[in-house]
């Protein structure tokens, strides 16, 4: 039998059904591992003191009713920007140290209603401002493959939780790369649903027009299941889609990709990209071809421009979203904001201020339209767009120091798809220097089924889905 921490959601449920182990045993197993490895890795900021009680209740439910809730007894790691009553929610910032939310986010409520157990809240870039988890006010999370390196961000804690196998699955959010990039840097599966597919109610807002809650998991199947649970219209979030949620799990396990047309973006093979990374991407394209898809090179707008758009839009929106942190009704006063956060608020204030609004915000949103139109054109012919998630493997600790545009530069390959609100799967496609490299499979809005299907087929036909032996790597 596989060690408990190596099981997927389906395997856990099988174990419960066959009475191979109980939920209490599974949760205790994770708590023991967390106790052992978390002090070094700094993945969890807060742990659920009631996890074992809740696990016991799950065991009773399994006896009485069997497993009729999709995530019954599944231990999850939750990124610390989701409001969870009973667990502190800090967005990895001093300004919210000790904050106990007075309400729950829609998405975490749904996960609990599906029977999940929260093991704890995971570390992130402070207020999601970054692509490294190094901007956390509570110290960086370390990359389970190599503790001298960063796990990526902003959902670095949640991604590392999966790579370090300290939870069965995890919840994160993506504003521009924040799910896919850490998934790529730690070599696991991350999935970004279409903007508006899952509710933002109760998620500490970063960029209101791109934030998308989504899963980080061991496999595409697990990611599909979690997405299934959290997706759907929410009356409390006016930007969620009324479209019905499809059967994501049902679209998986396709034997091949016959008939699919996939575009490999030329510009995403950056001039400064290492040749060994490029090779992995080209190999991935070949793999998709061998599975029956047609893969062609196409040209898109220089991703440099997406950096500009994202920088302006994100900072403008976040500077406004953080205005409510004034220390009056909750949290501490504004001097408790970290440097990166202050920097972003300032720049966002600047880009929206009188005299600059047209030159920056409005201009950025116009370029955004061009990016959207370009993708729309591409998706008329192609089912998906692929490329690397990140310019290179996980960077070393300290790489973000004094780099005001670090996040944006690292996310150069994923910003465009986030700005356009598209859906995208990030899955491992190889290793360089002992560190994982991730592939993105990006589809048009509300084509989650397609993205997951392609990612799943690729994953099942490759062997890059690996997990580090922490006793070796740490």
């Amino acid at each position: 039998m596989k060690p408990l921490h190596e099981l997927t959601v389906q395997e856990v449920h099988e174990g419960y059904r066959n009475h191979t182990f109980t939920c209490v045993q599974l949760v205790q197993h994770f708590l023991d591992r967390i106790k052992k490895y978390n002090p070094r890795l700094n993945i969890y900021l807060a742990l659920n003191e009631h996890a074992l009680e809740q696990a016991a209740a799950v065991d009773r439910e399994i006896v009485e009713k069997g497993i009729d809730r999709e995530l019954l007894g599944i231990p999850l790691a939750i990124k610390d920007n989701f409001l969870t009553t009973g667990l502190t929610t800090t967005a990895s910032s001093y300004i919210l140290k000790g904050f106990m939310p007075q309400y729950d986010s829609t998405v975490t409520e749904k996960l609990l209603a599906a029977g999940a157990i929260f093991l704890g809240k995971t570390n992130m870039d402070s207020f999601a401002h970054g692509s490294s988890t190094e901007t956390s006010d509570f110290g960086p999370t370390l990359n389970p493959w190599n503790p001298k390196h960063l796990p990526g961000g902003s959902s670095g804690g949640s991604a590392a939780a999966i790579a370090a196998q300290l939870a069965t699955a995890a919840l994160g959010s993506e504003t521009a790369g924040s799910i896919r990039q850490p998934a790529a840097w730690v070599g696991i599966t991350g999935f970004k649903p279409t903007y508006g597919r899952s509710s933002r109610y109760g998620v500490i807002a970063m960029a209101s027009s791109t934030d998308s809650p989504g899963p980080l998991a061991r496999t595409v199947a697990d990611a599909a299941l979690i997405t299934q649970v959290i997706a759907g219209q929410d009356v409390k979030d006016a930007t969620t889609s009324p479209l019905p949620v499809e059967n994501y799990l049902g679209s998986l396990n396709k034997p091949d990709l016959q008939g699919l047309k996939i575009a490999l973006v030329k510009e995403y093979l950056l001039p400064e990209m290492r040749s060994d990374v490029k090779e992995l991407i080209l190999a991935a394209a070949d793999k998709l071809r061998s599975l029956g898809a047609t893969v062609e090179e196409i040209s898109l707008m220089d991703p440099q421009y997406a950096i500009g758009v994202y920088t302006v839009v994100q900072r403008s929106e976040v500077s406004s979203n953080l205005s409510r942190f004034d220390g009056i009704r909750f949290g501490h006063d504004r001097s408790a904001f970290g440097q990166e956060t202050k920097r972003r608020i300032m720049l966002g204030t600047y880009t929206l201020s009188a005299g600059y609004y047209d030159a920056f915000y409005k201009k950025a949103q116009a370029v955004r339209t061009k990016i959207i139109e370009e993708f729309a054109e591409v998706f008329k012919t192609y089912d998906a767009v692929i490329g690397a998630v990140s310019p290179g493997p996980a960077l070393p600790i300290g790489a973000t120091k004094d780099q005001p545009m670090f996040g944006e530069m690292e996310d150069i390959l994923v910003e465009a798809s986030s700005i356009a609100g598209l859906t995208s799967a990030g899955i491992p496609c190889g290793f360089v220097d002992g560190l994982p490299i991730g592939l993105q499979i990006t589809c048009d809005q509300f084509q989650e089924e397609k993205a997951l299907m392609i990612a799943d087929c690729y994953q099942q036909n490759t062997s890059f889905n690996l997990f580090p032996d922490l006793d070796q790597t740490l």
Partner: protein
Amino acid sequence: MKITPLIGLEVHLELETKSKMFCGCPADHFGKKPNTQTCPVCLGLPGALPVPNKKAIESCLQIGLALQCSINTISKFDRKQYFYPDLAKGYQISQYDEPFCSDGFLFLDSGKKIGIERVHLEEDTGKLQHKTLNGQKVTLVDYNRGGVPLVEIVSRPDLSSSAEAKEFLKKIHEIIRALGVSSVDLEKGQMRLEPTVNLCLENEIGSHYTPLVEIKNINSFNFASQAIEFEITRQAEEFSQTGIEKSSTNKTTRGYDAVKKNTFLQRSKEEAKDYRYFPEPDIPPFIIDAGYVEKLRQKLPLLPDQEIANLEKLGIDKKDAKILVSSNNQVALQTIKDYSTNSIVDIQKLASLIVNGKINSDQNLIEQYDKLTKIGTTDRTELTKVVREVLATHPGLVAEYQGGKASLAGFFVGQAMKATRGTADPQTLASLVADLLS
């Protein structure tokens, strides 16, 4: 030197919806214990999101229609950003460049047309109270009012006197009440007024404009009128001394002191506020089609000016008509309507009696009318003429009566009543008939 005051009015109205503008908290906040009607949305907690109140939007559109505005096909909410403790999110969700309604007007009784620049929707702030606690000066904040829907009406600076301003405010007040979207109780702060005043001074050389002054903290029409009066005088004097003219950066804000009956500088001049408006990303825009607007227009209740016109058509004196509509006495207005085709009741007289307070709405209006009007016409000399005429018209019936058919007396009285349009006292008539036929 010819001095023309240029007065614009900004009016904020609290809508009486059941729930707040962007969340389901109760909107009725007056007198409630502090911070007992808040939720994550209106308390500005992290992660909370706004969802607009349909009824509030409809009410705003109705107000716009009542003020002859165009309803914009595309509109949206925007964030107006500034820091103040009563503003939980650090921004107010309001409307900036694409409001729901624009370009309307209102006629004053003189026939002068006052332009309405826009009518838009926004959310109210919480309430502040200043106190000293343990020797420290503090401000207490209550967010119950935060998020209540506010409609903002902005007039063009077409008003030229305090009297016109007062009339304008009264008309707005009546229209809103007729629409039933707010009680507009000024004492409860349901209608807030902000005049902006400056002067145009013309001489042979040319025109000069004094700097704009916005006056805040006014909660009655009389105070508004007084504040405007004071400002007009003050600005004329200030200009004669300093000659400073209006520029894009010298608009000031003054408060009104009801006791001293003057205005005082409220904020020392600082840079023009930079609200950093941008489209509210959490709320999709609105596309309002003409068909929907038409339906709303048809559902509009009768507005004051129309009601007045209708009453005038019934022959009622304009002055009486205005008072009746202004009094909002629905019983009286309905009674007048009911009896407008009744030939016995004199509508003009009825209206006049109501307006002069001779009839009150506590009791049946027509009963009171009967009593009053009949007492008024027991003039025997007058009525004798009427009865004689009736009898002369029916010689045959008179003969029958005199032959013993006593019941015909009722017929003669009835005819005489008709001839006096119901204003005669039936008993007087009866006695006259009896006398004349005896």
